């Protein structure tokens, strides 16, 4: 009985010693790890601080102004160009569902929204119109487009690249068939 207890006690002692040993060394290891991480954090912080200082130096207003006046063609903002929301005109139409509107418009006049389709349609109508009466085609071409249409092909294509930015993309499909139609019309004119 007593011996059994002794054996258990001795065993427990050894086990406890082993556990303590393990805990102590793992604690030391962890402490070292913590110390290493802390010094790494400190180093990173220093790096961040250095980078921040560099950024502040590079973005200092003095430097920005010097560079801006050297490389950019900018001017000081006049007070008169500052406006507020109340001075803006009322928005004409606001839709609750803008995407739905687009889908609807596509459904209703899909042909008009399909550029290639419109080109084909225009060409077809031009061809249909051409045989009917010769002078009429030239007349329509002349009035619908610039006077240059009666000139060479190169001239008719000129206005396209110089078009202003304000031109909405919606205008493009209409403009394309017309300029295309013009040489077409000329060809038919020339051939006939």
């Amino acid at each position, binding site marked *: 009985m007593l011996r059994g207890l002794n054996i258990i006690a001795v065993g427990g002692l050894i086990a406890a010693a082993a556990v303590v040993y393990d805990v102590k060394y793992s604690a030391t290891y962890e402490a070292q790890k913590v*110390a290493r991480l802390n*010094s790494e954090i*400190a180093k990173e912080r220093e790096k961040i601080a250095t980078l*921040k200082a560099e950024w*502040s130096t590079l973005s200092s207003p*003095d430097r920005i102004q010097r560079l801006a006046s050297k490389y950019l063609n900018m001017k000081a903002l006049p*007070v*008169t160009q500052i406006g507020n929301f109340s001075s803006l005109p009322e928005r004409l139409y606001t839709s609750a569902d803008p995407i739905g509107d687009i889908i609807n418009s596509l459904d209703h006049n899909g042909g008009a929204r399909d550029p290639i389709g419109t080109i084909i349609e225009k060409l077809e109508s031009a061809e249909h119109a051409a045989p009917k009466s010769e002078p009429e085609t030239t007349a329509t071409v002349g009035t619908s487009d610039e006077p240059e249409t009666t000139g060479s092909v190169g001239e008719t294509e000129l206005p396209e690249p110089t078009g202003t930015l304000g031109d909405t993309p919606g205008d493009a499909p209409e403009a394309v068939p017309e300029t295309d139609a013009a040489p077409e019309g000329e060809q038919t004119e020339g051939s006939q």
Partner: protein
Amino acid sequence: MSRLSQLLAGLSGWLRFTEGGVSRRRIAIVVLLFASVHVVIAGRLALIGIKSDPQVARRVSNPDLLASTRPDILDREGRQLATDVQSAMLYAEPRKGVGYVDDAVDQLRTVFPDLDERELRDKLSSKKGFVRLKREISERQQHEVRKLGIPHVGFLDESKRVYPAGSELSHVLGGVNVDSVGIAGLEKWVDSGGLADLHMAGFATGRSLKPVQLSVDLAVQHAMRDELMKAQANYQAKSTSGMVLDVRTGEIVAMVSLPDYDPNKPGKPTDLSRLNRLTTGVYEMGSTFKALTLAMALDAGKATLASRYDASAPLHFGRFTITDYHAQRRVLTVPEIFTYSSNIGAAKIAMSMGVDQHKAFLRKMGQLDRLRTELPESAMPLVPKNWGEINTATIAFGHGLAVAPLQAVMATAALVNGGLLIPPTFLKRTPEEAKKIAKRVLRPETSDKMRYLFRLNVEKGSARRAEIEGYYVGGKTGTSEKVVRGRYSHDKLLTVFTGVFPCYDPKYIVLVMVDEPKNTGHSTAGLNAAPTTGQIIARIGPLLGVEPKFDLPKADQLLLTVSQRAAN
């Protein structure tokens, strides 16, 4: 084997022998002894466990950090104005020996050709334990020095104070010495909060210090400095200075005093460029002081806007004569005295109040005592020792009393912000905090009248050139003759402009001072300081978020609406 059995037998015999009452007590004593020893050991273990291992702790903090760090200084938008960066420093320990000194000198000079040979040799051949050889060493240079393999030569990290904005805010920030101790400006103020003691104890290391946030806006500061530099070149002035103050909180949004200096570069503290003219200089503020005189009389009820004063003839005081620069030679109303900047009128208004009341009013407005801010540098106003009637008459138009410009701006802010005197600060402050420390010095109605007068002066008075459409600028010009060898000089002038905007609800005061403008034809404030202020307001208005309004009534209507509001 037999001996062992004998020993066991003896031991068992001894045990048996001790099975008496006495031996039992002895056993108890022994057990107690051992137990107490164990308790001591356990206690000690617990103590060690509670205290952190000093070895580990030392490894955590960077032992190489020599000069301790300082808190970052940020502007009101969080932009960095001052920060610490680490740089390596080359040192040697000559006592431990650096090998052959001549070799070491030659080798070090291959990496750093700019090191002085004799100085280096002296340092290395001394018997000191530690000598500093060179600061700010790049990574590449460190690598090269390590390759040389000179014994007992090494590197230490030290923190260095850098000011990313350069000269932009030199006077406000001040500077630090080589040991990172603040020697001027806000840097010195930062130290006064016990930081210097922390440094000495070695606690202020790492980046644990909370940054100091200022009321200064770097963008506004730059705009102002840029415009002032232009003005300085344009009018060939000796110096120009200016500041922007938030009238609602007393926060200093910008403060420029040219010439200035780069705090990154060490310089002599006696250098003239180190002088902050707005806080350490005292000046006779000239006609801008008339605003105070008029406010005093309006507030006391001694005068109304309709009161008339005879300015048809110069005033004589013994051998002194007070004349008007823009003489009208007739009876003037109070607004006319302001817009024509009549010295005679202002003197008469002040004299109607009496010397004592005038003095008491100026003391109440903080013009007679030293104004202290966070900046350690401040100046005592020059107050006449024997203040007689002649002094009151001249001080009424800003001559005979020299104050720090910051002081005058504080008083002007009280004239337009509804009558509250708020001590100016360089630190961020909320309107609530400002309200707590504000002191009521004028009735709100007086403030309304002063706003009207300031605006009127820009619409049709001497400050017309300060007008910026949309910002409803108001202001007062001031041209004073500088005292040269005890006499007022006629060609050395100081021109001042205090601009307020927007006048219907003042938010900011802009002060511009041009010292000794030489460009003839632009010598008075209305021709140099006023247009400069206008330019500054046009630039800083959008930065400060002041909305321009273009449908505003004239000043007369402003007063009308104000008086209607008061009647209701």
